[in-house]
């Protein structure tokens, strides 16, 4: 199904906007970026290590799978993947990943399955000299309940296109952990369609890599769907972490809630957060809120934070956003220090709390523990080393 056919089926037209180009799998329809385009202006294109050239490659990431009962993994052709009917690629990197991956991995959770453990996909790269194109489809059947964890480690130059189909009434917790080695390059477009009355919660944790640029695009297959998108990132010297989110409220009574929190430390640590929300004419009674908070730990870091709200109907339940880039709160540090806690320890506590505040929303104890441990590792590697 092409984008045009799909839009006709959903009875909604194209909304002219420079924030989200018309999606298509046609690589040539996405011009090679100059770096001045709205969707590229924050990304250091040279550090993509030639991904935009789109040279074919046979390299793959090593994949380890843990699959509970009710889950199957198969390989499908590119055409079959496109025919599943999700939104095509919004940018050239997304289109290139589909064109060059040579087929897709399909993870299927059976309808009405209630998984007794998380699906785990552990993807690791061996060398930054290997260019890897990835195409992944996660399909969660109607009324099923699943947690899917995708973990990235190692070194690679990786461009992926991932589509997520959340069936009607399904509940999906999707966790992406980007814990790459310092030299890795990772671009990914994650296009999610949330089914009628379905609930998606995505958690994205970006902790390592030279350049990570992910674009998460959410739309709805019917009314009543809910998408919560949570993210956490911790950028060290020289790292560029860019998280782009676009929620397309194309159905009534849908909800979205975006919370991304990041910390930066070291010279030329750079983070970018873009939060675009489109509320279409048809999307009456929706609710949306997006929030991005950045904690700048040292001089020489730079955090960009850009929320955008495009509203085409006034009949909404609520819409808002908040964005902040700040240093340590002196009053918090004073309070902790007035209880005898040393300055470095007070800073560590504040950062721990800043992230814990988000991690505890995961609501899955084993997952929270793992994520807290990951953050503590990162704090030990960075904040403590710097300050103690």
């Amino acid at each position, binding site marked *: 199904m092409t984008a045009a056919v799909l839009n006709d089926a959903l009875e909604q037209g194209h909304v002219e906007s420079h924030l989200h180009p018309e999606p298509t799998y046609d690589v040539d329809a996405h011009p090679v970026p100059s770096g001045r385009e709205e969707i590229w202006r924050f990304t250091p294109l040279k550090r993509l290590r030639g991904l935009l050239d789109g040279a074919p490659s046979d390299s793959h990431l090593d994949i380890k799978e843990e699959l509970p009962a009710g889950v199957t993994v198969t390989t499908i052709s590119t055409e079959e993947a496109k025919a599943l009917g999700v939104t095509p690629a919004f940018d050239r990197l997304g289109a290139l990943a589909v064109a060059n991956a040579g087929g897709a991995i399909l993870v299927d959770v059976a309808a009405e399955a209630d998984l007794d453990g998380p699906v785990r996909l552990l993807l690791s790269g061996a060398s930054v000299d290997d260019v890897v194109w990835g195409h992944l489809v996660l399909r969660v059947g109607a009324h099923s309940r699943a947690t899917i964890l995708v973990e990235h480690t190692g070194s690679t130059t990786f461009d992926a296109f991932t589509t997520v189909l959340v069936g009607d009434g399904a509940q999906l917790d999707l966790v992406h952990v980007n814990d790459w080695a310092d030299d890795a390059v990772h671009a990914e477009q994650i296009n999610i369609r949330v089914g009628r009355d379905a609930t998606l919660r995505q958690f994205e944790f970006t902790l390592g890599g030279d350049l990570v640029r992910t674009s998460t695009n959410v739309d709805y297959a019917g009314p009543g769907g809910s998408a919560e998108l949570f993210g956490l990132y911790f950028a060290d010297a020289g790292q560029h972490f860019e998280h782009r989110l676009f929620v397309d409220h194309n159905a009534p009574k849908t909800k979205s809630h975006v919370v991304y929190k990041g910390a930066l430390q070291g010279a030329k640590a750079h983070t970018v957060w873009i939060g675009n929300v489109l509320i279409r004419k048809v999307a009456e009674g929706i609710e949306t809120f997006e929030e991005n908070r950045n904690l700048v730990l040292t001089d020489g870091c730079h955090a960009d934070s850009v929320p955008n709200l495009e509203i085409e109907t006034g009949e909404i339940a609520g819409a808002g956003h908040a964005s902040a880039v700040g240093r340590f*709160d002196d009053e918090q540090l004073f309070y*902790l220090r*007035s209880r*005898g*806690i040393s300055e470095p320890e007070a800073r560590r506590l*504040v950062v*721990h*709390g*800043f992230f814990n505040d988000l991690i*505890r929303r995961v609501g899955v104890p084993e997952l929270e523990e793992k994520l807290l441990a990951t953050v503590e590792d990162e704090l030990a590697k960075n904040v403590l080393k710097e300050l103690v």
Partner: protein
Amino acid sequence: MSKLEIKDLRVQVQTEDGPKEILKGVTLTIKDGETHAIMGPNGSGKSTLAYSIAGHPRYEVTGGTVLLDGEDVLSMTVDERARAGLFLAMQYPVEVPGVSVANFLRTAKTAIDGEAPKLRTWTKDVNAVMERMNLDATFSQRSVNEGFSGGEKKRHEIAQLDLLDPKVAVLDETDSGLDIDALKVVSDGVNRFRERDGKGVLLITHYTRILRYIKPDYVHVFVDGRVADEGGPELADELEANGYEKYLATA
């Protein structure tokens, strides 16, 4: 032993119109085991005195000395002052999102004592203090001061006073915003602290009602950054009857 000596303390803050002197030479001494009340109208510098003793960076000391058992407090960092035995119960305790009360208390106790408290007795101690302060069992799992009611914030401050066991406690308007039940719980907590050997208390308040529950040994009247009058507990009764007018008229 605990003795807090404040001599001719002068403090200024930066304002849009340049530096402004708030404390204009404050002298008072809290000897071993004494409780002193500081009373005064709004804007007289009471809270400035509290925050200056604790070392808040907003307050710039321009003269005078503060000694705790002979040690120069003003040369210490904020956390060194706390480890030396000073405690400030704040009027507006600060929220620290994502840091649980349990984690905060354990971290503070470890810092003050120089070693981690023994797990079994510590948990027991914390639970006992929480119960005495009328804070329920889930309180320890909440984020520090986040979403606390006014009363919960003050009771949490006094729970810290109990557990951290300083030499001298400065209580900055701990009674403000409390209903009568919460005031009694907080006062009981302060009185339990006073019963311990040689503890000093500097009780800063705008109202006399807390002095019905916590009996001070001395009362100082603070006006325009100076001690305008001092006396025994009877001075509080006189203030209750006549207010601050006579001091304001001469100030």
